């Protein structure tokens, strides 16, 4: 058999055998059979001792050609095998994307805190400072300087926890922060502050009463301040928290530290003023109290009431949150049930 025939035979055999390769193992066996030390391609160049230089050259050329051809076939086969194995591996990695996710722990704000933060941002944007004061407070600041002397019957409405004789108490309102702010401002310059904080009254806890609650109080001291200024400011709050279409109303009221005093009402967001159970048929909902700062309070704090005037307002944070989110039990804010987080911890519709 001459060399040409041998080459032809090898190629025919390889074409057949390569088709039956299924794995990298098959392939390496085949490689040995053709290209190994005793492989049929390698053997072509054996027993060339008796041949002329010309013949040797010719056989060398032919065998090299064959070798590179075989190499190409093998690497082509190897590539195909790799692809097939990768596909198989990938196929084995198929997952059920409908299984539940891993819970990523993201914390949440307490509902009241969330509401307070929104209120603070609103007032900071109008140039108000956010200030705070102590919860264990002097009777002097909680009552006396607020135009509520000892024994004043209006104190009855605020049954108070005293902690030391009749001088220290758990503050029954955030108004003492107004007093502190005015007293602290030695230069007696205009003031705009908002002071959210915890307050306490001797109430038994039930769905609508809580011995601890939260007020958000604001104070503006300047010159020629009017109820119209207060109403405009209240409008901003009402629209921000209860919707652009809210109307507002002042009802005459009484607070010892403001005069005139008003109740802050918004048109009912549930019935749009037609009358429903939320607004008790009146079409209006009271959300806070306010008024023009009483002259005695200004004078008590070193602001000459013949020069300065101001308005003050207060909201119950719990009441606002109960109305805004439709919460019926005030204790909801203090039990901290983590299950409510799922529907609360998101951006609001604003």
């Amino acid at each position, binding site marked *: 058999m001459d060399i040409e025939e041998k080459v032809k035979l090898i190629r025919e055999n390889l074409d057949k055998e390569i088709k039956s390769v299924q794995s990298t193992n098959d392939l390496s066996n085949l490689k040995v059979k053709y290209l190994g030390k005793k492989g049929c391609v390698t053997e072509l160049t054996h027993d060339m001792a008796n041949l002329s230089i010309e013949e040797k050259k010719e056989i060398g050329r032919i065998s090299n050609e064959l070798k590179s051809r075989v190499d190409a076939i093998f690497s082509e086969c190897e590539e195909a095998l790799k692809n097939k194995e990768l596909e198989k591996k990938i196929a084995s990695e198929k997952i059920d994307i409908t299984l539940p996710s891993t819970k990523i722990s993201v914390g949440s704000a307490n509902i009241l805190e969330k509401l307070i933060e929104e209120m603070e941002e609103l007032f900071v944007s109008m140039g108000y400072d956010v200030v705070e004061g102590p919860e264990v407070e002097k009777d002097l600041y909680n009552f006396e300087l607020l135009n509520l002397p000892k*024994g004043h019957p209006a104190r009855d409405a605020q049954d108070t*926890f005293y902690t030391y004789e009749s001088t220290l108490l758990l503050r029954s309102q955030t108004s003492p922060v107004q007093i502190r702010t005015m007293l602290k401002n030695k230069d007696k310059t205009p003031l705009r502050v908002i002071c959210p904080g915890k307050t306490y009254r001797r109430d038994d806890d039930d769905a609508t009463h809580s011995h601890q609650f939260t007020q958000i109080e604001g104070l503006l001291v300047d010159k020629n301040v009017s109820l119209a200024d207060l109403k405009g400011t209240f409008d901003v709050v009402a629209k921000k928290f209860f919707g652009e279409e809210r109307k507002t109303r002042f009802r*005459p009221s009484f607070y010892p530290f403001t005069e005139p005093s008003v109740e802050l009402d918004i048109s009912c967001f549930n019935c749009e003023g037609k009358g429903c159970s939320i607004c008790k048929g009146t079409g209006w909902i009271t959300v806070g109290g306010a008024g023009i700062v009483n002259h005695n309070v200004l004078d008590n704090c070193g602001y000459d009431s013949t020069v300065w005037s101001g308005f003050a307002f207060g909201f119950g944070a719990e009441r606002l949150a109960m109305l805004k989110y439709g919460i019926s039990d005030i204790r909801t804010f203090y039990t901290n049930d983590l299950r409510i987080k799922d529907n609360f911890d998101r951006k609001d519709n604003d």
Partner: protein
Amino acid sequence: MAISMNWVKDYIDLSGIDLKSLANKITDSGVNVERVVSHELNNLVIGEVKTCEEHPDSDHLHICIVDTKDEERQIVCGASNVRAGIKVIVSLPGAILPGGVEIKPSVIRGVESKGMICSLSELGLEEESAETRAKGIYILPDDAPVGCDAVKYLGLDDTIYELDLNPNRNIDCTNHIGFAYEVASVTGRKVKLPSSKTHPIEDSVQKHFSLEINTPNCLMYNAKMVKDVVIKESPDFIKNRLIASGMRPINNVVDISNYVMLEYGQPLHFFDKDKLGDKISVRMAEDNEEIITLDKKRRMLTKDDIVITDGSKPVCIAGVMGGENTEVDSTTKNILIESAIFNSYNVRYTSLRLDLRSEASLRYERGLNYEYCNMAIERACHLLEKYADGKVLSDTVTYDNIKKTKKTATVSLSDINTVLGLTMNSLDVKKSLDNLGFPYSVKDDIYTVEIPNRRLDVEAHKQDLIEEIGRLYGYDKIISRLPIVESKKGEYADSVRYRKLISKRLRSLGLNECRTYTLVSSEEDNLFKYDRKDKIEVLKPLSSDKKIVRQTLIPSLLKVYDYNKSRGVKDILLYEIANTYYDMDKEETKIAVLMKGNYISSNWNESKLKVDFYLIKGILENLLNYLGFNNRYQLKEKEIDDMHPYVSCEILLDQEAIGYMGRIHPKVIKDEIYVFEISMNKLMNKKVRPIKFKEISKYPSIVKDLAFVVDDDTTSREIVDTIKKAGGKLLTNIDVFDLYKGENLDSSKKSIAYSLTFSDPTRTLTEEEVMEIFNKIINEVIKKNNASLRDK
């Protein structure tokens, strides 16, 4: 407060005014009419019982023929006091009684009945009780006109305003004359006061007794005497009006004192003159002095109580309650009437202390005006003469120490418009003042206004006048605007800003913010007594679980933990930032974190990260690093109350203790709960360097790993300290990558493996120089920490 509008009509003409819309008007102007109640009883007529026979099939029913003018109807009646010849209230078929019972023609034990003869309780005009049931049907006077509307005849066609009063109007609107003035101020009509005319006999009170006031806390004391009174039932109009105002009629004399109080707001006290004797002396009580009050209870007095005495013993606690010893009873003949004003603070103090707050004591507390004090006693005499056949003595014994300076204030039109933000004109202002009934003079748009005594709540200040004028003019006319003020940026107070920073960081770390109660129980206060100071207690706690102002937030978070756990929540990650208080009024803001369960979790596969000491330590470090305290804090082993003695520590910042961290002691709670609590004040006090950019080295770093075997109680920090010292500047990071105890190691030993990183920002390090440092580290740790290198 319940106001009878029939009664108010005595003082002001309300013809043509709808009482429902009047109520709305009054509410809008600041006196809140909470509810308008009218007795809507129809088909009630006056009937005359013509005949009354016993029902053949019953032992208590009667068959009556009743003339109701339209017909003579047969009615079956079960009352024991029904008899022929009396006038009664008949509800005709079609009447609906309170409670919704409709009267229909019916057959009762075989006898036809066309209506019902009524008692007052059946009509809802008296409380239903054994006493009222025994009274049976209501018998009308003989002159009652048959066939007429019984409701109207009895004056029961009343409309009641239930008021929800603000504390300032509790003074003048808790009586019918005062309320009539309020009605006048919204309607513009005039108030007419009732008659106080008497026909005095020629006898002087002064002959019968003397008055002595021995305390400045009695500001005014009027006394009049009425002789020969006849105690009996009050006339219907008095009874009906008292009932409408929520008071129970008793007898004519007692009822008259209440009636006058509800008219003028001035409480009166009636003494039985014969029991009292011939002297009244008002003084402060002595400590431990005693009196038996009308409710038959022995009361111990103090030197802050004002008492009326007969010269020696107390006969009445001023403004609070009378004494049994001088009580008016069914045999009383001669009455001494007291109309007085006492120091309201004393009355308040005494009534609160004795828990004897009454309609009268509340009125003394809120304040009384001397004009009404004088008028009320005259009015009482008038009524006693008319309805108790009394003989009024001609004069009054009076003590009067009231300052009577007129309350006047001035206010200008521009003041009014500036404060209200309105554009009222002088006509508007005049109309408001006229309606209020405040006398005034005006010059150049400046009003000088006199405030009547009946309005004790209105002070002599322009702000008070502006409020009165404004509320009547109507706040609905105010047009909103934003304040015209200097523009400036709004700022958060430092403490608020700092708290918010921390809060937001903790939320981003997966913790849920809590808001819990400041007041806790003794049991809670006794837990976690770390760095505890003098506690603050509420003087009169409402309940034992809200008694002490807390100094630690951890027990409150544990409560939240329990609440959630019992509702099936497994992974509980909480924080709270709140103020704590101690030593009377010292404040410290604390940050508390509680963690239990998995930090990250998935039920069906293995991706979970369980909370342990090192995880909460990670939260703490993350927070402290965020606040700029990198490398300034360390943990110190320390036993802390109620914390696991071997899994907890104190936290030091710049060597100062700021709080503690670790696992809660299993004796407190078995669950594996980790907490820390630190002082925000202590964090805030520390200075922090500004942020400076630090370049990351461009040159490659060399990492070397090694493991030491050390004694079990050697801490990683001790080893790290040695490594750091030996490693010098080129050692830029130390990490622990393995901790091993057990097989192949002595039981008192452990192995800790460290990964050390060496680098220099200015050049590439050589293997030789790193090995030199590395070997130095090994030698130092072996020497200083009693360690050996672990075999590879």
